[in-house]
């Protein structure tokens, strides 16, 4: 009773099997052809985070999965597939970034956006937690000082709010400005959660104070700069313009660079 060639070939052909259902999705997500998404808890409630092999592609306050999926496909042209949770490493990285650690690396998938938008978002990433900068500051820092309105638009189109902290960019007059992730109320909540005294910032702005100087160092800062926060009350000198500060013998802080975006006055 021997095994014929035909038997052998049939037995081998029978070893063809069906790929597990996770295989194709894994490939397409890795290549950034399809995205996955999961819920993430933030100070302003439950957010949807979407990602693929290239990086995080969306952060959105979608009320339900169906809304997110249709928004995502409309925005990116890519299907978004539900996942139970974020990959552990990504969840950890986001938590650390939101906790103020700017060194933690989070790859972003920003395909389909303009160089100008990427420049704006990249610059927003440099603003430390607990501080804010005016729209004009971003415009000046990226070498497009007249594009203040376009900076506002680009920040409004930020597909990954919180991770790219567009909430740390406020109007030049110091009022809080618009926010894409559910409106100005959320912006206030997030800034407060980051340790910024929003009321003090706004009342200072209303009274016309745009800069704070120290009469010991003769350095002038944007009001929320961490260097400005260290100035004790007796040494704090408010200024309405950089010209006034310069006239009083103050030089601009090298970290918050208040001269960027200063309205010529």
């Amino acid at each position, binding site marked *: 009773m021997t*095994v014929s060639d035909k038997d*052998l070939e049939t037995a*081998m052909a029978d070893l063809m099997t069906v*790929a*597990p259902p996770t295989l194709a999705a894994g490939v397409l997500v890795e290549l950034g*052809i*399809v995205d996955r998404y999961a819920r993430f808890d933030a100070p302003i409630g439950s957010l949807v985070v979407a990602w693929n092999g290239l990086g995080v592609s969306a952060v959105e306050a979608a009320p339900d999965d169906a809304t997110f999926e249709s928004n995502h496909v409309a925005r990116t042209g890519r299907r978004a597939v539900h996942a139970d949770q974020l990959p552990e490493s990504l969840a950890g990285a986001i938590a650390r970034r939101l906790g103020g650690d700017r060194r933690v690396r989070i790859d972003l998938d920003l395909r389909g956006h303009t160089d100008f938008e990427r420049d704006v978002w990249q610059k927003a990433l440099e603003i430390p937690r607990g501080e804010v900068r005016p729209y004009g500051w971003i415009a000046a820092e990226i070498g497009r000082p007249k594009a203040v309105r376009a900076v506002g638009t680009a920040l409004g189109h930020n597909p990954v709010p919180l991770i790219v902290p567009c909430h740390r960019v406020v109007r030049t007059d110091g009022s809080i400005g618009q926010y894409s992730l559910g409106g100005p109320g959320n912006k206030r909540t997030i800034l407060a959660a980051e340790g910024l005294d929003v009321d003090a910032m706004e009342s200072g702005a209303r009274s016309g104070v745009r800069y704070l100087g120290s009469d010991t160092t003769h350095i002038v800062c944007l009001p929320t700069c961490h260097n400005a926060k260290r100035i004790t009350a007796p040494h704090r000198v408010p200024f309405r313009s950089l010209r006034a500060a310069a006239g009083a013998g103050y030089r601009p802080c090298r970290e918050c660079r208040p001269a960027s975006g200063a309205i010529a006055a």
Partner: protein
Amino acid sequence: MDTDSTLISALARDLDGSFEALVLAHQDRLYSIALRLLGDRRDAEEAAQDAFVRAHRALATYEPERILELRLRPWLATIVLNLCRSRLARRAARAAIARPALSLDATELGTLEPRADDAAEPATTAVRRDARETWAALLLTLPPAYRSAVVLRHVDGLSYPEVATALDRPEGTVKAQVHRGLALLRTAFEAARQREREEMTA
């Protein structure tokens, strides 16, 4: 073959837009090739995924003319085969470190031992189990050169010229390796059956 030529012209036009169709059309064969070479489902899934990712990265650098000339079946087989080879080599290296006293042949066999959950069963159970499992296990005992030739020719069903292309070996060599591989399988199968009969009558 017709679906492949439709697929290839779609890939040349819009790689990202048609890549899902390529994955769906070829995932069973790439997974099966990897599973029959590696013997482990998780390894096989990773190798097949990796193969598709590499295929996409390569296609992204090709001019449309070059994509149109591709022979998709053997090309994809080559990619997954190479990934399986390096996985087997890594496994052998790990085994050699773990058991430095064993000879090379014994080390190779060591990597082909049944999984832990199978190991608890009596030796003859393998033969009594589903014939498919038996053949899969026997296939894993073949020397790698024979194993890959048999898998491409008779599991995946590539033609001899395609197998020769995929393995980058002359067609004559490939034919000899397939025949030798099948002969070894037959011997191993009959020996296992003989053992089973002896144990039943004992």
